[in-house]
């Protein structure tokens, strides 16, 4: 552990700057002009991003073994033998994360200035957004579990606030509540995990827990802890079965979806598992659980994305699916690949969402891809950048997504088996298909706009420039991790290596490079196939009827998919209705009936006595005398008996 010195002692500024921005916008946002608000908001994030880059620069200069810097701020919760300080940890993993988070956040902030310009709650929006960035940075910089938990809950809260941002919409309020409660359900496991960690280690510092994990934990305990922590990740990263909140979260303004529900917050689960990787490594059960959940998620959400018609929901399901990929990567022992995919996905998906935002903006809040089309000529910048994003998502060679996805595919093949790999390749094909289904429907083909749309809104430069920058990142971001097979250095893996202790198996031997190239070829082909199929279905004149026909023949499957595998409905019946039923029962039957009636009954009994007893007092003297005589007789009888 290295004490923070020099520039690193200013590490706290990275989260503090967005916090300052947030506070400013919270307290004064209503008093100052939108311009000031946006300057403060973007400026604070921008500074944080610059600082992150500077830190990165200095970090790279450190020898590898010193790349673990802790900065303790103060002791937050000291209680007996428990103590949870606010401390920050800068290691390669968090370094990468803060750079990505601050950078992408900055771009999205800038974009938002244009996107939200006409919103009356401009300041509130940036307050939330800045606050979110603060919590996200705190999350990734956390030096112990509880600080991570602050960030974890904080981002969830901001996500809730932003999903419900359009307060007048019932659907937005509903989606916000759902997002919060579902993720909170995951957090329930996470807190238990934290407590279990403390009980086992008497400490919650990453620096103390993780290195000692293999000494302290029995395999069973490791499994428990890993699964509990993974429970949190499942909620936050929208994995099956807790994925249902993310599509609904698309009620949020589009930049929010880009930032929170694509690039950063939802990946926190991946980050968490990666962070606790030493514990997961101790438990094969946990590892396979992670992989299986990831696989299920990837497949299920990819299939749902095939049939959805809401531009943002398609992207949301795509996000869920890609997160599934990352978890597969983690589960099969390739955490570096997962983090790599996290980064490239962040660029690409942020780009796609922002592009989608531009589309929606252009068509006056239209979200249904069936009522779009032919936007290519109207918003060319969006068109081209979106294309880059879609290609990157689809995994076309040369773009960012390709490298990272293939790193995971390769690891799955070697560690997980052919079947796993095959399913993932098919999923990759589906990904390419739905990305381009969306792309073609939105930008090509004929106009199917809503008749009310007379004129297309053209995105302002503040919106297009971030798009372009993200497009560049999505295009070239993959070059930080060109695999050895392609003659690259796979710098990201080696950079992250200190965080992830080597697994017991070796990946990437001399023999594997040829295998790697072969695998890449197959997956690229499948992706191409997906794109071509999408073109055939949605652009080419011959295939125009195909989707309809397909829907007819496979109507059962179609319904199943378009209802999202009926997850929501089942949850409604099994959990929500039951819960409300139980609540009503306890209120009506137990609280107001049994308990309240007991009290009322007792009171009624006494008060009823108050009605009856005075009736003894008839006012008749002889009756009174009778009482006295009776009393005398009873007393004498008592004395006689005893």
């Amino acid at each position, binding site marked *: 552990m290295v004490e923070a010195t020099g520039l690193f002692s200013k590490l706290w500024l990275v989260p503090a700057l967005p916090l300052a921005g947030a506070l400013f916008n919270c307290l004064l946002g209503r008093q100052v002009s939108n311009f000031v608000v946006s300057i403060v908001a973007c400026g604070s994030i921008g500074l944080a991003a610059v600082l992150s880059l500077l830190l990165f620069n200095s970090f790279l200069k450190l020898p590898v073994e010193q790349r673990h810097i802790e900065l303790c701020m*103060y*002791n*937050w*919760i*000291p*209680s*007996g*033998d*428990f103590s949870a300080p606010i401390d920050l940890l800068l290691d390669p993993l968090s370094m990468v994360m803060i750079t990505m988070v601050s950078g992408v956040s900055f771009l999205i902030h800038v974009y938002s200035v244009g996107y939200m310009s006409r919103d009356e*709650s401009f300041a*509130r929006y940036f307050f939330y957004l800045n606050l979110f960035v603060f919590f996200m940075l705190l999350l990734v910089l956390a030096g112990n579990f*509880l600080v991570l*938990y*602050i960030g974890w*809950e*904080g981002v969830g*809260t901001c996500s*809730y*606030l932003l999903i*419900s941002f359009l*307060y*007048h*919409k*019932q659907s*937005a*309020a*509903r989606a*916000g*509540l759902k997002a*919060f*409660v579902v993720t*909170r*359900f995951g*957090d*329930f496991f996470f*807190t*238990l995990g934290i*407590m*279990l960690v*403390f*009980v086992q280690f008497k400490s919650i510092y990453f620096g103390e827990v993780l290195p000692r994990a293999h000494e302290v934990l029995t395999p069973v305990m490791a499994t428990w802890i890993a699964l509990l922590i993974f429970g949190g990740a499942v909620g936050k990263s929208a994995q099956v079965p807790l994925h249902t909140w993310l599509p609904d979260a698309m009620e949020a303004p589009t930049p929010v979806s880009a930032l929170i529900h694509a690039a950063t917050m939802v990946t926190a689960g991946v980050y968490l598992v990666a962070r606790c990787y030493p514990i997961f490594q101790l438990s094969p059960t946990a590892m396979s659980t992670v992989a299986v959940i990831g696989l299920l998620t990837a497949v299920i959400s990819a299939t749902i994305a095939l049939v959805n018609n809401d531009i943002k929901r398609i992207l949301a399901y795509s996000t869920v699916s890609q997160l599934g990929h990352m978890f597969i990567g983690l589960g099969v022992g390739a955490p570096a690949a997962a983090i790599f995919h996290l980064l490239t996905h962040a660029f690409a998906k942020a780009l796609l969402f922002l592009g989608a935002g531009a589309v929606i903006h252009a068509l006056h809040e239209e979200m249904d891809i069936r009522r779009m089309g032919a936007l290519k000529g109207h918003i060319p910048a969006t068109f081209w950048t979106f294309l880059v994003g879609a290609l990157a998502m689809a995994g076309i060679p040369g773009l960012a997504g390709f490298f990272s996805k293939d790193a995971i595919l390769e690891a799955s093949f070697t560690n997980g088996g052919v079947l796993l790999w095959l399913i993932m390749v098919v999923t990759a094909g589906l990904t390419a298909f739905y990305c381009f289904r969306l792309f073609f429907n939105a930008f090509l083909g004929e106009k199917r706009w809503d008749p009310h749309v007379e004129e297309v809104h053209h995105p302002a430069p503040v919106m297009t420039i971030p798009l372009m920058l993200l497009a560049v990142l999505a295009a070239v971001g993959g070059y930080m991790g060109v695999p050895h097979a392609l003659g690259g250095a796979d710098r990201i893996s080696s950079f992250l290596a200190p965080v992830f202790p080597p697994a017991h198996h070796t990946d990437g031997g001399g023999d594997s490079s040829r295998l790697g190239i072969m695998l890449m070829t197959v997956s690229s082909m499948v992706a191409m196939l997906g794109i071509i199929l999408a073109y055939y279905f949605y652009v080419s004149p011959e295939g125009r009827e195909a989707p309809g026909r397909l829907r007819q023949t496979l109507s059962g499957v179609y319904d199943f998919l378009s209802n999202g595998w009926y997850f929501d409905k089942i949850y409604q019946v099994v959990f929500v209705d039951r*819960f*409300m039923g*139980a*609540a*009503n029962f*306890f*209120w009506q039957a*137990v*609280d107001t009936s049994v*308990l*309240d009636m007991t*009290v009322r009954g*007792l*009171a009624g009994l006494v008060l009823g006595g108050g009605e009856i007893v005075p009736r003894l007092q008839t006012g008749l003297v002889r009756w009174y005398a009778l009482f006295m005589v009776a009393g005398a007789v009873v007393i004498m009888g008592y004395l006689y008996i005893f």
Partner: protein
Amino acid sequence: MDITHWPVLSILILLPAIGAGLIFLIPWADDFFPRVLALLVAGVNLLLSLALFRAFNPASAGMQFAERRDWIPDLGAGYSLGVDGISLFMVLITTFMVFLALLSSWGEVERRPGLFSGFILLMEAGLLGIFLSMDLLLFYVFWEIMLVPMYFLIGLWGGENRRYATIKLIIYTMGGSLLMLVAILSLYFFHHAQTGTYTFDIVQLYETSIPAYALLPMGFAFFVAFAVKSPLVPFHTWLPDAHAEAPISGAVDITGLLIKTGAYAFLRFFLPLFPDFSASYAPLVVMLALLANLYGALIATVQDDIKRLIAYSSVSHVGLIILGIFVLNLQGIEGAILMMVSIALSSGALFIIVGMLHKRSRTKDISQMGGVWRDMPLMGGFFMFFTLASVGIPGLSNFVGEFLIFLGAFRVNVIYGVAASFVVVLTAAYLLWMFWRVMFGPAPERTRTWYDLSFMETVTLTIPAILVVLIGVYPKILLDRIEPSASALLVRAEKKLAQKEIPKNRLSVASCQITEDRELKTEK
């Protein structure tokens, strides 16, 4: 201000009592002056308690600023006051919330606001008396006397059902506490039988060992009295009525403080007096607490009356507090104390907000609201903030207490920890659902006239908001001062258990946390 040589605790209690006396006795021509007087007194008391906080020695586990005089020497009852880490924050939160209650009810009380302020001051005196008494009889005096102003606050300014609410309040709390009086007397005579001295001094009574046959009924009497006040399911049904029928938010806040006395009394009196009872019945109590936690959350979900909803959420939170106390370890107890402070702040502020809504809407029915955010964004922000605080978002005050309680519970029994943390999910669900129904969605036409917060109202809400953040971010201020007293409490209970040679499996967790030097400190 050097207050170490003042009888500062007496002043704290007497000042509001005298203030109330002045308000009641002087035939004021106008309601303005009594209100100003009350605010002044509450303000001075707040400052005084802050000075007390500054002068408080965080390292000491014993009673500080102790005062002791004979009161009824014939009975061995003393006028004996003292403050330690456990009561210090109860005192602070009381003075603070009373001040806030007076501030928030400034424009809210329409009829006889002067009298209203007088009753609030009387409540303050009683509450502080409860928290500062070191003599069981004195404690009982304050414990009982609290009910009178409470009764009047609800009975005079209450809603349509106020009569029912007051009756319930009286039946429950008086029934419970009078039984405790019998138990107190029994304890007192047992002590005499063992030592030959008549005394109500709790430090001496702590040493009394209660014969086995009397343990259960006496423990039960104390338990019921405290459980009613807390209130723990199934003794809780007075609270929703009391909350719902007190239309003035200030009065509700005070009720909020009143229920803290139950949990406080568990800590101060029940644990040290009945460690064996506590230890052997702790699983039962914990079950009850967990049940309360879940039960309150469940019922809160389906409430349409916003005050009832928050009241049931209090029931749920109280379950957590009791859980923290009865897991009998340091984290649990510290968490419980923190939680009491936090809930007073967050629920108190929520009630103030509900009062503000009520002032504008004349309704407590959630279905009559909706879409309020559009016209009252500022209030919405505060509302959101305090709702989130109640939900237990880290960085805000409730989280710290909650987490410590969970941790304490988890260490004792994994099931406790699991059950308690699960309810947090439900808490989030019903509180945010409430928020949604009130603030979000399309706004009905009539809400248009609901104006946003005035300056005064903003100030009223800002102060607790700052404290919520402060405690959430830097709870060390509290924890440092609570810890010596809390561990001394555990040590004492354990020692008493050891004397009785009862298998002390329950307290073993506590023992490993408390260091030797602290034990020595308690000895002094």
